[in-house]
């Protein structure tokens, strides 16, 4: 069957280009190491040597607000049962905090189910999994019940925490980004993984890191 032969992927519209680091939103595009891939097909953000956590660089304050090696700002959000949950509750064990666009959307469902399917592995690594989106507690409750999610979903109404942590949006700001953070036992970020349209990869990447912690 004849297939469409398109020009080199680098010349495609940037939002679909898998290997063009410039596809990253302005938040980090100038800061990415050359080995980084696009935010649509997997992006590991590692700080450049010149951007140490204690750096007072203007760029780091404008772009990724939470970087690897930093302790992210704490928050208190309601879980699917309406109970307030503070991030410090998880101190002492690794925690996977994954920001996702919305409940009951295809990618987010795949991602949640993938976390659920691998939950035993996360437990074995001593880690907790926490999902965060802008949906309210009742939406989270229905979502968790429908797909039998064993982990906590937090309601970031108004996307305040998302903005504080600097989770980049996709599609020119139309879409809340899909970004996962792995915090170690001390609450320090050890991995930031961004991939909007390959949600299952978040599980692979985070497990890979947890097994090395």
């Amino acid at each position, binding site marked *: *069957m*004849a*297939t*469409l032969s*398109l020009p080199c992927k680098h010349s495609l519209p940037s*939002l*679909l280009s898998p290997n063009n680091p410039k596809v990253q939103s302005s938040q980090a595009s100038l800061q990415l190491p050359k080995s980084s891939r696009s935010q649509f097909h997997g992006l590991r953000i590692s700080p450049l040597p010149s951007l140490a956590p204690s750096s007072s660089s203007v760029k780091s304050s404008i772009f990724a607000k939470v970087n690897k090696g930093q302790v992210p700002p704490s928050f208190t959000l309601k879980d699917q049962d309406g109970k307030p949950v503070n991030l410090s509750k998880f101190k002492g064990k690794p925690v996977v905090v994954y920001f996702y*666009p*919305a409940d*009951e*959307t*295809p*990618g987010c*469902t*795949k991602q949640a*189910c*993938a976390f*659920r*399917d*691998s*939950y*035993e592995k996360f437990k074995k690594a001593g880690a907790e999994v926490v999902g965060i989106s802008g949906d309210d507690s009742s939406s989270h409750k229905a979502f968790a019940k*429908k*797909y*039998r*999610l*064993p982990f906590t979903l937090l309601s970031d109404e108004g996307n305040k925490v998302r903005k504080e942590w600097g989770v980049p949006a996709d*599609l020119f700001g*139309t*879409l*809340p980004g899909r970004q996962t953070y792995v915090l170690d036992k001390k609450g320090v970020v050890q991995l930031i993984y961004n991939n*909007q*349209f390959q949600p*299952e990869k978040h599980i692979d990447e985070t497990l890979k890191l947890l097994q090395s912690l």
Partner: protein
Amino acid sequence: MSVLPQRGLLFSASASATGPKPTAPWRVRCLAVTTTRAPPASRPKPLSEAATTTSMPSTAPSFLDDPSSLKSTWSHRAWVACGCTTVFASLAKSALLAAESHSLPGPVLAGWVGYILADLGSGVYHWGIDNYGDASTPVVGAQIEAFQGHHRWPWTITRREFANNLHALARAVAFLVLPVDLLCDDAKVLGFVALFSGCIMFSQQFHAWAHGTKSRLPGAVVALQEAGILVSRAQHAAHHRTPYNNNYCIVSGAWNAFLDENKVFEALEMALFFRFGLRPRSWDEPSSEWTEDLIATASTRVDT
């Protein structure tokens, strides 16, 4: 544009009541749903499965009670004639102008681009119609209703006569291409318009052929399908199978792999959802109106 309520009417969780089972088979919405391309030989869903996914009893489509609704009328033929005339006029004018200026490659290339983009256009339109709106939507409501009927009884498109199948597209093409024919004197533009509009107009015929069986199609059509010049039967069959969110293009199908693998439509759906709150039908289990009536399909196989 109104949106049908899309919450899964017939969804049933596959995990047991005893708790999450990592190894349990998942419904399409739960686990990684890979869009399918050129799948293995299609098989109809078992009737037991059809019974669980189709809440409505099997009913033959109303137009089978009135077979004349599948036949071509003189009005249909007239519109197809108009559409064809404008397309051929565009092609002829392009050829004449190219000959006069001794520059054939440009218009030929433009024509090829028109053919390629017609496939993309057919996919975008098809995706929009399949996912948004309903029969009451202005302008395209009748189209949406027709596509809904097509999803319920896919085989009926093979029973429509030629002009009956094409007349709606031919009418649109006639109105849009005529001004170009009259006002444009650029061979490349005319070449592009001829191929683009011609392929769009005939896409319903290509679509009907994609629902045909190899033994009943002309050899030339089968050869074109197998060469990828026309959308293949296997590729289009994948569109009519769960999760019903792929293989939307129906001219050559050349764009399907790219669009599905890069989740272009999923990206558009997410953008529309977050920007306008529009939830596409493909995100939920299809309602009964959009689910294939397998009992009717099976009975037509018996009849034929």
